């Protein structure tokens, strides 16, 4: 683990800023070469990445490919395909009055940016933002999370072997290193993590007027309307897959809790139990295809959620833990107390509270009583209810009839609102997030509009009044002397 004193960070930054000023990261050639190098990195080190994820989180290779390697590959491929059009200036429309002028929107890199990765998806949540920063032509410092040390160490070794070390630097370490980095001025900071640390990052950034992107979390609910037959099977799979599939519930867009109508709860619970057994098995010491909790601190935190009065009593499935291996089995709770921590804080673990309601429409008020989450999931075929959910709740995004999958849709922005964060990325949004869109107006010297200049008189005022209204006929009449000028 590399410690980084103030001097160390400063000298790295100097190199990066110098590289940026030299212009080397501006050309499309450099950007594409780096994106291809990143693809090479993950292709040539796939098994090592699988091993590292297994070490840090007990992540199965299929999950690792689906949520980490596959995501990075998809993003890099997408960027390579579209970067030319993203980099191209856009034309701005101009009213006739400005003829013959030209307006452009020129995307340009911000400069030197800082990316904080997260521990739950230590590869994709570190490299996906990096893809955006590179596509936009910036120099970058990346700090992966120390809570996934094997992955952090792997990236630390691999990145300098594949990427341009004068433009992209990787730094390892914990909160002390993060604090050191935050003392400096950056052109943008991209942070994925908790609201608590998000506040600290933004406060530090404020001293330098550094803009930030905060990808935080929240309690992402599932609203479950009624389903039958084969659709119910798919619904249950998607809910289970969205709760326990991604990193055993340790995911910002993972299902946190579920809202369902009272009378449907028993069937749902039975279906979920069967699904869990099929997906993962039912022996906590031998669960398959299932991540462990990242470390003892979080393990204890999640276990403690079950300790509160009334919570343990609401467990209807699971609840067993393997302390030695930091595994908590998939657990379902039915109507735990609403003021318990499990219902007031983001769970970030494999516990699924099911809250029953008299009417499923009440779920909207329930959700609105809590801070805005990163995503709201709703399973329903009722078009009117869908409309109501979209209009009457607020969240980063909404996904109907599935879970998690919005994450791989590159045409949709990925980001939060309110306590779940601000700023967004994925697809072109990644490019935009790390760019400054510079407005450029091109004018010629002719024609000259005399009425722009003093000394002021009533004629000029009338001209300006007509110009603002884009009243070309009025202007023409005025210039021909055929329009009366009202004195002020």
């Amino acid at each position, binding site marked *: 683990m590399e410690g980084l004193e103030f001097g160390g960070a400063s000298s790295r930054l100097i190199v990066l800023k110098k590289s940026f000023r030299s212009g080397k990261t501006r050309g499309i050639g450099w950007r594409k070469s780096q994106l291809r190098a990143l693809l090479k990195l993950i292709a040539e080190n796939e098994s090592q990445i699988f091993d590292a994820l297994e070490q840090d989180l007990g992540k199965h290779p299929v999950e690792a490919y689906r949520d980490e390697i596959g995501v990075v590959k998809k993003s890099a491929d997408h960027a390579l395909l579209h970067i030319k059009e993203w980099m191209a200036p856009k034309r701005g429309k101009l009213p006739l009055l400005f003829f013959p002028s030209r307006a452009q929107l020129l995307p340009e890199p*911000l400069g030197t940016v800082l990316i904080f990765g997260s521990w739950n998806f230590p590869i994709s949540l570190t490299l996906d933002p990096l893809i955006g920063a590179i596509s936009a032509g910036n120099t970058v410092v990346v700090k992966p999370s120390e809570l996934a040390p094997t992955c952090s160490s792997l990236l630390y070794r691999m990145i300098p072997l594949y990427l341009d070390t004068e433009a992209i630097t990787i730094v390892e370490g914990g909160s002390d290193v993060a604090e050191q980095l935050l003392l400096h001025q950056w052109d943008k900071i991209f942070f994925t993590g908790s609201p608590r640390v998000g506040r600290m990052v933004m406060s530090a950034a404020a001293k330098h007027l550094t803009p930030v992107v905060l990808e935080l979390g929240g309690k992402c609910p599932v609203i479950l309307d009624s389903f039958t037959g084969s659709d119910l099977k798919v619904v249950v799979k998607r809910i289970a897959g969205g709760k326990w599939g991604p990193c055993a519930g340790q995911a910002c867009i993972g299902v946190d809790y579920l809202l369902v109508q009272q009378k449907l709860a028993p069937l749902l619970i039975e279906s979920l139990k069967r699904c869990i057994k099929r997906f993962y098995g039912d022996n906590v010491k031998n669960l398959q295809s299932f991540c462990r909790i990242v470390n003892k601190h979080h393990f204890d935190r999640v276990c403690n959620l079950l300790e509160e009065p009334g919570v343990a009593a609401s467990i209807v499935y699971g609840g067993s833990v393997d302390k030695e291996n930091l595994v908590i089995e998939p657990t379902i709770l039915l109507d735990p107390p609403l003021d318990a921590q499990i219902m007031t804080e983001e769970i970030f673990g494999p516990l699924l509270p099911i809250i029953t309601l008299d009417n499923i429409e009440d779920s909207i008020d329930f959700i609105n009583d809590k801070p805005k989450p990163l995503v709201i999931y709703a399973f329903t075929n009722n078009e009117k209810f869908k409309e109501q959910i*979209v209009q009457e709740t607020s969240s980063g995004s909404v996904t109907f009839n599935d879970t998690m999958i919005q994450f791989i849709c590159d045409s949709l922005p990925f980001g939060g609102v309110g306590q779940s964060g601000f700023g967004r990325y994925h697809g072109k949004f990644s490019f935009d997030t790390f760019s400054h869109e510079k407005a450029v107006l091109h004018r010629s010297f002719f024609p000259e509009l005399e009425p722009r*200049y003093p000394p002021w008189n009533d004629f000029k005022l009338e001209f300006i009044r007509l110009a603002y209204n884009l009243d070309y006929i009025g202007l023409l009449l005025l210039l021909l002397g055929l329009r009366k000028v009202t004195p002020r």
Partner: protein
Amino acid sequence: MALGVEGVADDLRAVYAAEKTRSYEWRVSQLKALLKIATHHEKEILEALRSDLNKPEHEGFLHEISGVISACKLTLKELRRWMKPEKVKTSMTTYPSSAEIISEPLGVVLVISTWNYPFLLSVEPVIGAIAAGNAVLLKPSEVSPATSSMLSKLLGQYMDVSAVKVVEGGVLETTALLEQRWDKILYTGNSKVGRVVLAAAAKHLTPVILELGGKCPVMVDSTTNLTVTSRRIISGKWGCNSGQTCVSPDYIITTKEYASKLVDAISSELEKFYGKDPLHSNDLSKIVSSQHFDRVTKLLDDEKVSGKIVIGGQRDETSLKIAPTVILDAPNDSLIMNEEIFGPLLPIITVNKIEDGIGLINSKEKPLASYLFTNDKKLKEIFKRNISSGSMAINETTLQLAISTLPFGGVGESGMGSYHGKFSFDAFSHKKAVLERGFAGDIAARYPPYTSGKLKFLKALLSGDILGIIRALFGW
């Protein structure tokens, strides 16, 4: 101490939660009310601007009132279209699905305005906030008290005061407001206070737009049309509130051989605009306060600078006026070359080759705007590529702000975020991604128990590799 501002954010949030500000009809009614204020109270507004800034009526009308009227009209015309969801394409990886991006209001917005364009810079952000369906609180600047009071009165008269509030006051009131939780803050002002706003916003994870300033440079090369160049520089500098404008030309860079021609042209055009005694011209704004008057004259009285005045230099403390002043080659370490001038002083720095100006500009913080006057196509490309600023204009000054299809905002020390036109609507909206999936074609490969066959399938699916998908499905 009760300032009367405690809990105001919560009050607005309760009104917002009752959904009144979301409807198209409410937004239109409020925009029409703002339009009525700008059109029916022109005299009152211009009087307030004259009182606060000695702003000439033509400037007040050209820059402020017309700006507000244009923004209102554009927004009223386009709002329905802007409010529509945007359908986006989806790919094989999420098939079958449909997706759209929906604009929703953020909730409760705080607009902290400033004193130099106190009507425009208060109302235009409010237009954006209302258009996006938010409840909004405006705090005008206390440094322009007549306009602040006029805004409080007129908005109180015309607007839905339960959802659109004005709070007057100074540092104490602003601090009390910043302690409360807002869903977005737009601040126009200087970078020192910008930092304070950002730090306060961090406590609540509130996103912020900061419209700050900077030293906006003008590069003039010898291929340019000298007369038009001078007029446009004068217009952008002294014609805009006597240089007290965030996008005013702050300083000029030109070649050593061209400098005297430029000085002569500026001198001659200045006389045409403002006469032989510009200090007493009625067409020039005064300095807003004695505090700023002292600040600006201090820049001029610096002994490194005072000997280099080539035009103007006169001042009148009682009327807070400073004549249009041009300084030739102030030293690089003088205060005037290191702080945003925000006044009627225009330093001209000479270089050997015009390209040397690029390095000089880049040695300073990124400004809100940068300007180039030239007929040299290559120089234009070099300038565009190598200078980063909020916006840029070639052969023009300040006019880019009048174009509603261009975003207005800074970068680096000059700010973050942008607004104007549709950018205002977007700035105060949350763009919510909505994905709808079908049940057909559920892919077993997503779910455990995980196998190597599933791995092959996922690889193919995520690459959009159709043949690969087919092969994997058949277990080949």
